[in-house]
């Protein structure tokens, strides 16, 4: 039986994003204010998401990990809405690790708002209900005669008011209600209105502490030299020159490990500061045993993709009708390719570990802290309760910190010194040893009848799967077909899609928009190719396929997400309308369109991109229209930031982003080789949001997948048809 889409994103499966298991009202032992527990009247904390002290200070705790996607603003807004407090007076803090059930901190897949919306509304409403009950008891009136307003309970008969802070002691003694009424969305005062990032002033004054800024008493610093080939071993190290550098404390060796995290064998220099460690690292003389897989390269990999694309796929992922029996009047085929990509967060990977006997304390930014803690407990023999995890803000993640290879390294190093040690990856390490977005290759074939209609659609995806790394080569979760299995938004009489995974000796991981991004590019370009080939308008053609298709479910489980082709059409129409599709354009100006569903986050987005062709293969992006339908918007300004940012992220990988491998070594060593979009290259962008009362979806990734196909479709309108990313490889230049 086919699995639900959501199951195939292994990190979602590993976490509890979709389980709905985030019951409220519990706190783990050690935290006060549980019904019946002793309390000291200092504060009221009916659940792990909020706390009110007797001075009325409201602290809202964010379970999800902030890395720039704005969860530390959007999630507290939801709590504050139901709690009836002024958001400006709310203090936002990271929910301490261990105060929530396992999986509650898991952050990824654009799941945070979508999965927590209801829970956080209830968390706020429970506190409000208890505060009202406390006030009603004082006034000796019915609760229904009380209302909550702006951090106070109001007696609606006498119009007396009591501040929340003055009710803390009484409220804390009440039982926590199981069911509470939620506000009517039409009464929302906070949800749907723009708020600035929580703790913004700390960022702007340099006070914010990211993982790398964390200092622990007595801490020392480490950098590491790693085996250039994944799976290789350390033979010997000559550290005599390194040890002569004043301030170097120790040089330690550690072995590599396999799935899930694929830590390379390494040698770390521990010193009294980062610079000393960096300097000494350069003096290490190391002999590595590279192993058997030390001669792989990306050129050969793509040649293998091309060769195997013509064969039957390793996995059949979606089949409808009988593709083989269709002989169209015309057949169109095309191949598309995209390279390995690195996340390239500006804050390089880093982690602090302190080990004292059987106790282990950790500091750093992780998207899946439970997976990391559980793995570290099992691998190093710590009792889980003896591991204290301190979560920090992250200077970008984009999926990179779903992996915790750097945390394992830090523990391996810390085990060998009796001080807390901070491991920092240098920039070149970050570029050369990342879990890369898989390289991918697509072969598409459409059989078209006399009337110009597609009778059969075939799509063979080839890639280097993430799951064969995280779960091992025998995993059944290799196919990366989000949007191309039952979730495929276009419907044709006969469809066949399949996947083939190839082995390749560098690590792979999840990168923002994951396989939806990899798969939307070829589909949205090939749809364009079909429209042009059959002399149809690319907008009208897409709409003819999407507008009248009923909503459909992609999985059998009750939580399976509903796919809505009409909402995909909706964002497309809006984008086309805003850019003036069909209007007369200036000479040498061309538009491309693309649309999609972010299939596991209830969100839909489209791009319309206009270019001006300046010379052969040289262009300027003159306009970008981005549209999104994500249901109820929590923080419009945060949403705009995500859409603007996704454009930059998408353009980086469309124009210039590429990781290449030679002799099983990544050839890029930092931002000089692995470039990302710069200030000058950022085109103007307009973002339009579809007003919707649907349940909120996730917005951290949905703005990314349609950037590449929209730009490539614009270039196709100008007479080119780029099918390989980044387009710089094909000689395109831009200003």
């Amino acid at each position: 039986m086919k699995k639900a889409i959501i199951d195939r994103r292994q990190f979602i499966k590993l976490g509890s994003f979709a389980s709905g298991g985030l019951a409220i009202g519990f706190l783990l032992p050690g935290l006060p204010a549980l019904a019946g527990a002793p309390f000291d009247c200092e504060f009221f904390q009916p659940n792990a998401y909020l706390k009110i002290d007797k001075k009325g200070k409201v602290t809202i705790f964010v379970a999800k990990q902030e890395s720039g996607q704005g969860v530390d603003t959007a999630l507290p807004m939801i709590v504050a809405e139901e709690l009836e407090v002024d958001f400006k007076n709310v203090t936002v803090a990271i929910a301490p690790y261990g105060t929530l059930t396992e999986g509650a901190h898991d952050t990824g897949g654009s799941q945070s708002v979508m999965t927590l919306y209801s829970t956080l509304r209830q968390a706020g409403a429970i506190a409000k209900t208890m505060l009202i009950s406390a006030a009603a008891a004082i006034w000796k009136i019915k609760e229904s005669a009380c209302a909550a307003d702006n951090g106070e309970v109001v007696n609606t008969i006498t119009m007396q008011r009591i501040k929340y802070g003055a009710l803390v002691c009484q409220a804390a003694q009440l039982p926590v209600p199981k069911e509470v009424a939620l506000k009517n969305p039409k009464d929302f005062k906070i949800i749907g209105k723009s708020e600035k990032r929580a703790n913004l002033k700390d960022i702007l004054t340099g006070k914010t502490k990211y993982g790398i800024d964390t200092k622990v008493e007595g801490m020392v610093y480490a950098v590491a030299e790693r085996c250039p080939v994944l799976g290789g071993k350390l033979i010997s190290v000559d550290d005599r020159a390194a040890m002569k550098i004043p301030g170097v404390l120790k040089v330690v060796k550690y072995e590599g490990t396999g799935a899930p995290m694929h830590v390379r064998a390494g040698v770390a220099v521990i010193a009294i500061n980062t610079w000393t460690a960096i300097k000494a690292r350069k003096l290490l003389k190391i002999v590595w045993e590279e192993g058997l897989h030390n001669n792989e390269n990306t050129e050969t990999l793509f040649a293998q993709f091309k060769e195997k694309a013509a064969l039957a796929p390793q996995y059949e992922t979606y089949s409808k009708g009988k593709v083989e029996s269709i002989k169209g009047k015309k057949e169109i085929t095309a191949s598309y390719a995209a390279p390995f990509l690195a996340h390239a967060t500006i804050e390089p990977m880093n982690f602090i570990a302190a080990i004292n006997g059987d106790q282990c304390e950790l500091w750093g930014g992780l998207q899946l802290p439970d997976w990391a803690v559980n793995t570290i407990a099992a691998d190093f023999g710590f009792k889980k309760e003896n591991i204290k995890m301190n979560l920090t803000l992250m200077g970008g993640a984009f999926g990179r910190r779903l992996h915790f290879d750097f945390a394992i390294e830090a523990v391996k190093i810390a085990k060998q010194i009796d001080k807390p040690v901070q491991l920092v990856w240098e920039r070149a390490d970050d570029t050369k040893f990342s879990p890369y977005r898989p390289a991918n290759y697509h072969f598409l074939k459409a059989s078209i009848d006399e009337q110009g209609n597609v009778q059969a659609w075939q799509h063979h995806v080839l890639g280097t799967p993430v799951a064969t790394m995280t779960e091992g080569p025998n995993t059944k979760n290799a196919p990366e077909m989000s949007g191309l299995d039952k979730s495929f938004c276009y419907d044709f009489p006969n469809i066949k899609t399949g996947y083939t995974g190839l082995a390749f000796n560098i690590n792979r991981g999840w990168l923002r928009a994951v396989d939806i991004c990899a798969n939307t590019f070829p589909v949205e370009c090939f749809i364009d190719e079909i429209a042009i080939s059959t002399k149809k308008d690319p907008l009208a053609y897409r709409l003819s396929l999407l507008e009248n298709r009923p909503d459909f479910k992609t999985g059998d489980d009750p939580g399976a997400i509903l796919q809505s082709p009409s909402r995909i059409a909706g964002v497309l129409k809006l984008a086309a309308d805003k850019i003036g599709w069909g209007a007369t354009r200036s000479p040498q100006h061309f538009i491309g369109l693309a649309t999609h569903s972010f299939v596991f986050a209830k969100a839909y987005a489209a791009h319309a991109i206009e270019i001006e062709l300046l010379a052969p293969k040289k262009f300027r992006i003159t306009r970008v229209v981005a549209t999104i339908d994500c249901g109820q918007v929590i923080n419009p300004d945060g949403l705009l930031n995500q859409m603007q940012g996704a454009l930059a992220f998408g353009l980086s990988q469309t124009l210039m982003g590429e990781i290449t491998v030679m002799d099983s070594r990544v050839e890029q060593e930092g931002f000089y080789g692995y470039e990302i979009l710069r200030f000058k290259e950022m085109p103007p962008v307009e973002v339009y949001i579809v007003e919707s009362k649907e349940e909120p979806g996730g917005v951290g990734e949905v703005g990314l997948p349609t950037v590449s196909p929209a730009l490539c479709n614009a270039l196709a309108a100008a007479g080119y048809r780029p099918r390989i990313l980044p387009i710089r490889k094909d000689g395109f230049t831009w200003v």
Partner: protein
Amino acid sequence: MPQFAIEVNKKNYTVEADADMPLLWVLRDLLNLTGTKYGCGVASCGACTVMLDGEAAFACQRPISKCVGKKITTIEGLSEDGSHPVQKAWQKASVPQCGYCQPGQMMAAAALLEKNKKPSEEEIKEAMNENLCRCGTYHRIQEAIHYAIDEINQ
């Protein structure tokens, strides 16, 4: 180990460090001024941008021995309370996503406006092009710089 007397954010410090230790690591590891960020260490990202005598400089490229006698300004010294026109502009435009590169971005912008109160669009682009932002906040940085220009020219 040699000692160096330096002036950071109008305060005098004496630090003990190798002469070749970049200002970046002096600030971060010795003075605990972690607002100046490590991004690459090789002048490719701008996250460590500070001001040396009012000019934008990559702290990762300045050995401590060459910083003596210069007025060093970091994000912590731009203003502690966020009242510098550039910080206020960043607040108004709600620039940060992850925020990690923003101290460097703000120092680059502040240095530009120190020299040139009314930079042209072209001059802004030149001044900001070395500072990378992976979250893609470039539009808002541009918007914020215009707010700051308006404020300092009032």
